[in-house]
């Protein structure tokens, strides 16, 4: 990658390295941090993006992961607050209701909650949300450009949440570039065999580019590998799953937001603000895979699209 890609919304990994994350050696803050998250911390998706982000800030958080059930998460959130943790990250929209009950009981604790576009009027809660449609749109245009058949396959879990935003953005981007996206939702976040067969079905229906969201895409990525088909990832960097075929991943860099939040907490402001991860604030980063040879003009087109989204001349349709 070139120099000006540092701390920007685009990155290109060096082929052969396995992580695009540089862990800071010095922690940016002395605050104690806990994360409560719904899936496994190494899910190569939603939860991992947060765990990696905190690590990138040099902080070693306490983690309660795998709490897909709201009540269990609420217990953990309350427990961390109770034990004196300074910042509790409630990484799941579904935890918001519980947070509305818990946060007022711990006015000294700062809670960070997402994905959400509101703080529910609580002044010790920060909220964050990714504009996943933005990266989706960019990758949609790239996908359209490299697709020869003009048919792209998308494997989603259920049509909701940031998965839905990503799908909407991706479809809008691809269609703006003249390709057609066949979208199938498997009805499950974790059903790998189903995602695998869904991807196979897309290939059978003529797709020569694949993408997808949620943990179960590990199966779909294998189908891409088996058929030598390019893949686009989202949430976390998925290069490790198909080093030759992942064209790019839209990665959530929560650390951009978190660094700011930690500063505020240290300064005594415990919440009240909503952060959005966008291409503009470098919270969303399109991480191109250095091992995949993408035509220069296509990549430049992507950069232009990013600029267009940032200056508002392109609407992602979401």
């Amino acid at each position, binding site marked *: 990658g070139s120099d000006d890609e540092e701390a920007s919304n685009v990155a290109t990994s060096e082929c052969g390295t396995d992580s695009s994350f540089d862990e800071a050696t010095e922690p940016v803050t002395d605050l104690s941090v806990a994360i409560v998250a719904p899936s496994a911390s190494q899910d190569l998706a939603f939860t991992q993006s947060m765990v990696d982000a905190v690590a990138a800030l040099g902080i070693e958080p306490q983690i*309660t992961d*795998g709490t897909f059930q709201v009540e269990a998460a609420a217990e*953990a959130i309350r427990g961390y607050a109770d034990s004196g943790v300074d910042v509790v990250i409630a990484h799941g929209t*579904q935890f918001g209701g519980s947070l509305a009950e818990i946060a007022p009981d711990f006015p000294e604790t700062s809670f960070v909650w997402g994905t959400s576009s509101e703080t529910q009027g609580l002044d010790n809660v920060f909220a964050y949300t990714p504009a996943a449609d933005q990266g989706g749109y960019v990758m949609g245009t790239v996908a359209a450009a490299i697709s020869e058949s003009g048919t792209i396959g998308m494997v989603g879990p259920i049509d909701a949440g940031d998965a839905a935003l990503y799908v909407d953005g991706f479809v809008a981007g691809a269609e703006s570039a003249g390709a057609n996206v066949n979208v199938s939702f498997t009805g499950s976040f974790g059903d790998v065999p189903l995602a695998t067969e869904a991807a196979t079905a897309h290939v059978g229906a003529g797709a020569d580019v694949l993408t997808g969201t949620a943990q179960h895409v590990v199966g779909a990525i294998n189908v891409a590998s088996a058929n030598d088909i390019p893949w686009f990832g989202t949430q976390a960097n998925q290069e490790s799953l198909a080093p030759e075929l992942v064209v790019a991943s839209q990665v959530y860099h929560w650390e951009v937001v978190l660094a700011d939040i930690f500063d505020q907490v240290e300064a005594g402001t415990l919440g009240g603000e909503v952060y959005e991860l966008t291409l503009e604030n470098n919270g969303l980063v399109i991480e191109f895979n250095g091992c995949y040879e993408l035509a220069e003009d296509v990549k430049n087109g992507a950069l232009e699209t990013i600029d267009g989204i940032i200056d508002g001349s392109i609407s992602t349709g979401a």
Partner: protein
Amino acid sequence: MIRRALGAVVPVGAALVAFLFGAIMIVALGANPIDGLVAMLDGAFGTRERLATTAVRATPLLLVGVGICVAFRAKVINIGGEGQIVIGALASTAVALAVPGTPKVLLLPMVIVAGMVGGGFWGAIPGALKAYASVNEILSTIMLNLVAVQVMNYLLRGPMIDPLEVEGSRIPQTERLTDNAALPTLLSGTRLHLGVVIGITAAVAAYVLLWRTPLGFRLRAVGHNPNAARASGISVERSIVTAMAISGSLSGLAGVVLVFGSESLRMVTDGSAAGFTSAAGFNGIVAALFGALHPLWTIPSAFLFGGLLTGANNLQRVLQIPSPLAVALNGIVVVFVVSSGRVRTWIEQRIRQPVDDRGASAPVAGGGG
């Protein structure tokens, strides 16, 4: 007397052996097992708040478990708790969404009834399939669990979605429900809410139903011997459907408690049933069997498993032990405790022998025939 004591000592002993396994795993994970045990006990029963939380976590298990007791007495194995919870929750949520302004005294009973009707309906389907079409209930309930999840996904994504989410991030959840339907807190400063009382009441009611009413009498008769029940004028088909409907309605009630006793006061799906139910539909079966399929014994049993859940949560938080350990430990406890029944019999036989030698009396000339 000795029998009574054994009945309590042996399963508890088995549970202790199971925890020994847990301790070994904790050591393997590089933590101190004593700390682990302390963290579990402390998390489950350490403070007033935690006791309250344990009771709250136990309530869905209790309700499902009581339903299992009722169904099992009629010899129907209800593995459909997960689906029945989901449908009960959806029905009650729909009511709360439809008439949000209704005063609490009216709305609370309304959502409870809706949840029970929803769950009862979802339970009656496999009941009717079994009674009238000979479809095995293990098959149909497992399949209906899958169907219920997709019904939930569909409704929370479409018709019942929070209007704010339609244009926003499209989280599949309902809007926050009216506080008029929230289960009131019983002990301020804790999570203890009316759901716990509902759970215990349901257990007592099920006990009364099974052993004090003609309907319960019929269910038990059908469970023990459908042929004799039929010959004496009891409709076996109707009883099976009734048993499953009752069982389902109790699971539906668990769904109500999960929604209206939650802090978030809304339904949200992660695409799976367990995301909403915490697998209460399965763990409730365990609680019921641990309680010897007796509604009243299911109360302490569910409380114990609720404690295991809250304790494990604390264990993970305090020692940073991965959460799957708790699930695995849960399984080991179940396996050890169910296996202990046989051990109890062996011990009983050991101590009975000398007793009998002091002059066995034959009170009645029994017979085969």
